[in-house]
């Protein structure tokens, strides 16, 4: 993209992941932010995109700490038996 061009909503949305990763070039980042300054729809899109990432993490995050619960005894037994068979 040339630096002098204005980006469209479509282009802004295409670049959101790079924007959030901090990998946009400085002129592209400036243009991205200029667009946000004049486009409430893209501001709403960016905010909801960020919330989507947070909610995805929250929905599938471990709920019970790093140990994440016990291993069912049946599974432990099955693993022990399968290992014995392979030996």
């Amino acid at each position, binding site marked *: 993209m040339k630096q002098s061009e204005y980006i*469209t*909503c*479509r*282009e802004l*949305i*295409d670049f*959101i*992941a790079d924007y959030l990763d901090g990998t946009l070039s400085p002129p592209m980042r400036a243009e991205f932010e200029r667009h946000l300054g004049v486009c*409430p*729809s*893209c*501001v*709403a*899109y960016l*905010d*909801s*995109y960020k*919330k*989507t*990432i*947070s*909610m*995805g*993490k*929250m*929905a*599938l*995050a*471990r709920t019970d700490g*790093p*140990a*994440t*619960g*016990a*291993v*069912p005894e*049946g*599974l*432990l037994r*099955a*693993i*022990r038996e*399968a*290992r014995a068979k*392979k030996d």
Partner: protein
Amino acid sequence: MAVENPESDSAEFEARLLTRLRAGEDAAFDELVRFAGGRMLAVARRMLGREEDAQDAVQDAFLSAFKSLDRFDGRSQLTTWLHRITVNACLMKLRSQRRRPEKAIEDFLPEYLEDGHQRKSSTPWKPLASGGIEIEETRALVRSKIEELPEQFRLVLILRDIEELDTEEAATVLGITPNAVKTRLHRARQALRGLLDPHFVEAES
């Protein structure tokens, strides 16, 4: 007084366990399963959904880990190595299963007018719930929407955003290019955003 250092304690624990495993000590194998199995099961449940499939994948992962203990070089933590093996076992499981009918990802992506504007303007979302019943309902809703994503996109979302593999690692386990991982991740997030949108837009006043 001795200063506790959980990281080195854990490294020492892993090193001792590894020595016993390599010596073929039966109790050490049980100990490894009890030590790492819960976390591996959580990964498998996130990737596969069904409990039975998750347990099968964890069993496969352990058997594959036992077989390659000699190849574990100790450069990463034992748990990190097992995490990778679990992800691979889950992917194998998914590849062996019959695919369910899926919608195309395009059905979930934003639509644009010819001039590049969104066909339907985006409107702000409510602030996220921070606790209580509402947060549990939200978690259940988001989980069900993640399930609706086409598999190749759902997997990238889980590997990158939930399991926190980096782009290169995700590309390696999936056998695709890093650029394909980036594109799929962005589309998966967009699709999930689109599925969640009707539930979270602020009511117009």
